[in-house]
């Protein structure tokens, strides 16, 4: 399935319209605070749909939020888990769900914008609302509409975000954060001891040899040249 701009539901196209300053400004000053996701949150708050996402976020349960982020993890780094199966893209090697970063992802999003309702809930709300726009009356095995989408439908959600001024900063940074967490040591890193408690899944699925104080990788100097000349030489072929 491939979406063009003509396929985007009218309700979503309106997101690019002028922001409802009255509604948005009710929340903006206390909502926006810090960091790159804070900057993304600043942009989100300019959307005319911001108030509806806030309302939806306030009524979201922790389970619904977690369910949405599981669907997001499966989207960016799919594996054999049930969320990946639901989207019909489920390779056999472990994916984002197995990386053990779901809680950390939510905390990361919340810490970036530490006000009520949690920013993780707002992001979940907008993902789910866009999911309903992409696939009205959808159903599936999970509480979160986003997690019930097929993979191409999740791509369509990202496409809508990419072409919506208020959501571009978020759609830019969010997949990068998810990928970073899944492939780094984040899932098993213990902040108290500042070391890992187990081999990270991200290292397994990237065949990374792990951290080290050094490697036997030195292969000499190109043509044995250990210094460059100060003079304005022309170089050699």
């Amino acid at each position, binding site marked *: 399935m491939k979406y063009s701009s003509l396929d985007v539901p009218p309700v979503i196209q309106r997101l690019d319209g002028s922001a409802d300053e009255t509604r948005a400004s009710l929340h903006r000053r206390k909502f*926006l*605070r*810090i*960091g*790159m996701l*804070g*900057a*993304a949150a600043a*942009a989100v708050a*300019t959307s005319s749909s911001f108030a509806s996402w806030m309302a939806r976020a306030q009524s979201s349960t922790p389970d619904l939020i977690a369910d949405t982020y599981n669907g997001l993890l499966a989207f*960016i780094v*799919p594996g054999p888990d049930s969320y990946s199966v639901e989207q019909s*893209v489920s390779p056999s090697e472990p994916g984002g769900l197995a990386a053990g970063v779901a809680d950390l992802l939510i905390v990361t999003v919340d*810490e*970036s914008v530490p006000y009520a309702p949690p920013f993780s809930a707002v992001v979940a709300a907008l993902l789910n609302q866009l999911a309903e726009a992409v696939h009205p009356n959808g159903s599936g095995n999970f509480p979160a509409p986003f997690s019930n989408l097929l*993979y191409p439908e999740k*791509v369509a959600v*990202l*496409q809508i975000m990419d072409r919506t001024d208020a959501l571009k*900063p978020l*759609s*830019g*940074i969010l*997949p*990068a954060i998810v*990928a970073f967490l899944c*492939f*780094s*040591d*984040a899932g098993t890193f213990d*902040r108290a001891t*500042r070391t890992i408690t187990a081999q990270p899944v*991200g290292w397994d*699925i*990237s065949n*990374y*040899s792990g*951290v*080290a*104080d*050094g*490697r*036997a*990788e*030195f*292969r*000499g*100097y*190109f043509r044995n*040249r*250990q210094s*460059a*000349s*100060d003079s*304005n*030489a*022309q*170089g*050699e*072929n």
Partner: protein
Amino acid sequence: MRDVIVVGAGGGGAVVAKELAARGLDVLLLEAGARFANPEKDWTHYESDANHPFNGYFRFGPADRSKPEWVRELPQSTLFVQLAGVGGTTNHYQGNSPRAMPGAFLGYAGRDAAAYDSRHPFPLTYRELIPYYEWVEHTLPVQTAPMGMKEEIFFRGAQNLGLPLQTSKDITRAAFRPQENAVLQPQGTAGLSSDPTRLRFPLARGCTFCGHCSQGCFEPIGAPINLKAKRSTSVSYVPMALTADQWSRGGRAVTLIADAFATAIAVDNQLRARSVTWRVGASGQIVTEEARVIVLSAGTVETPRLWLNSGLPNPNDWVGRGLTDHFVDAVTGVMPSYTGSTKGNGSGGRIDYPGAGMLEVVGETPGLRAGLSAFSDAGVPGYYDNGLPGGGYGADTVGRLIGIDLKDAMANVDRLLNVDVFTDDDVESQNRASLSSAIPPDEHGPVPRIEIHQRQRSKRTVRNREFLVQQAVKLLQSLGASKIHRINKPPFVIHSHTTMRMGTSETDSVLDAHCESRWVRGLFVADNSALANGIGGPNPTLTTQALATRTSERIFRRYFGGAPWVGRESPVSSVDPIVTLAVMRSGLASAQRKELIEIAAS
């Protein structure tokens, strides 16, 4: 009253502090972030410890890691990578220290002169800067990079493209070369062993090929702080500044205060710089000190922010404008055999294309590699291009790598060959740092807004980037890559410059030819923001440091009646035994063993 207050202990400010301390001036060096006095304790090799964007020790935020990073308004999809803390962004840089393209300077008369941003040249000649390059290259020191497997393969690709080898430090033509890096060459067991018991100093010296440049270099373990492999200013210029009384005749040790965020610069009624006010992060205390000269080195965003928040003159409205960022892109090849992309120098090889920019072979740890691969302006391959059709030039995909594409590409991170694209981009007033009206002020005043008009860049800038991408794809094709991915990034700002630019014209620059403010006497800028343009694409740090050295001379001559020293004296290297002894006697070293002192003394 101090002689000089330097705001910011990063790549540029630390240079000014050290140079003027060596001349005996009373220098106060302020740093907004953490002290990072002991890298072996402060840092680890773990990505999530260092590079987590919101609570990693390298986030752009306060010394107290329990506090979040500082806010910036980014009205577009942007990763703006800057570090706080002593050493600044040089703590995670790869140490790449090339000289600038000569065509970026005033008076350049090469046949390709029209290929550069000729409207915004440096207001000095390239030749004038060379002695300052040499001074910094000796001080850091800068050395020719050794090869790991990724460099060996990259050089083979460059030769496949018919490119010659550049053997001089100066860039003279399109050519490939081992990087000139501020990374100590490996000696002893360094680079030859992965056994940690055999990698301690002094058994190992210089770069151990650990592959953790982005998490901060604290190798070899046990080395005195000034002998750590990568020459971040936190281990080179800052230790020299703090011990200037010991290694420089007539020198005077710098006073360094970390966790001190400058919030205001005051001027007198003659428009002369007078004082700096800062906020202490831990206590919230507000402190003001006066100085005869003030040097701003807070970075490409915070320097113009401080200027604007201080209400300093801005008659031509160029404070913060003209941001250049090398319009970075990335092309990754999945290679048929081992590349060792997670090991060795962050980048040990490059190709310069004068008038267009440069390509670098780059290695990264898997989290950063995956995260950056998922950061694109060009949609999702096979689904939508986000209004950026084409641009593959033979690449298999253009856009974000997510899902199966990401997993396939990352299946063996040590079989990737990553070629990063750094464009010779034009100074354009639309790209800028200013003050946000959308986000409330923080404890340091109105917060910065960084505006980059990615889709409206100049024709030359876009043409250069596309040319470089084509070359990267050709290189990877010639090496037999089984898949080639172009990411087509949104603003991924790892090189930022020119927001307080020096220039030839009063109409579009903030600084004069000596990096002094055009409108406030005794107020200088010595970070990347002072650069006149993007120097043609090469990594900016060395040029900023050379310029900062030149600025130091100017300050010493004009405001303290001193004589210049570059070209007349021999610089002291930061790895000279006299410096090692000084830092160890001062308790700055991370190793204190008596035998190390003896080694240093020998």
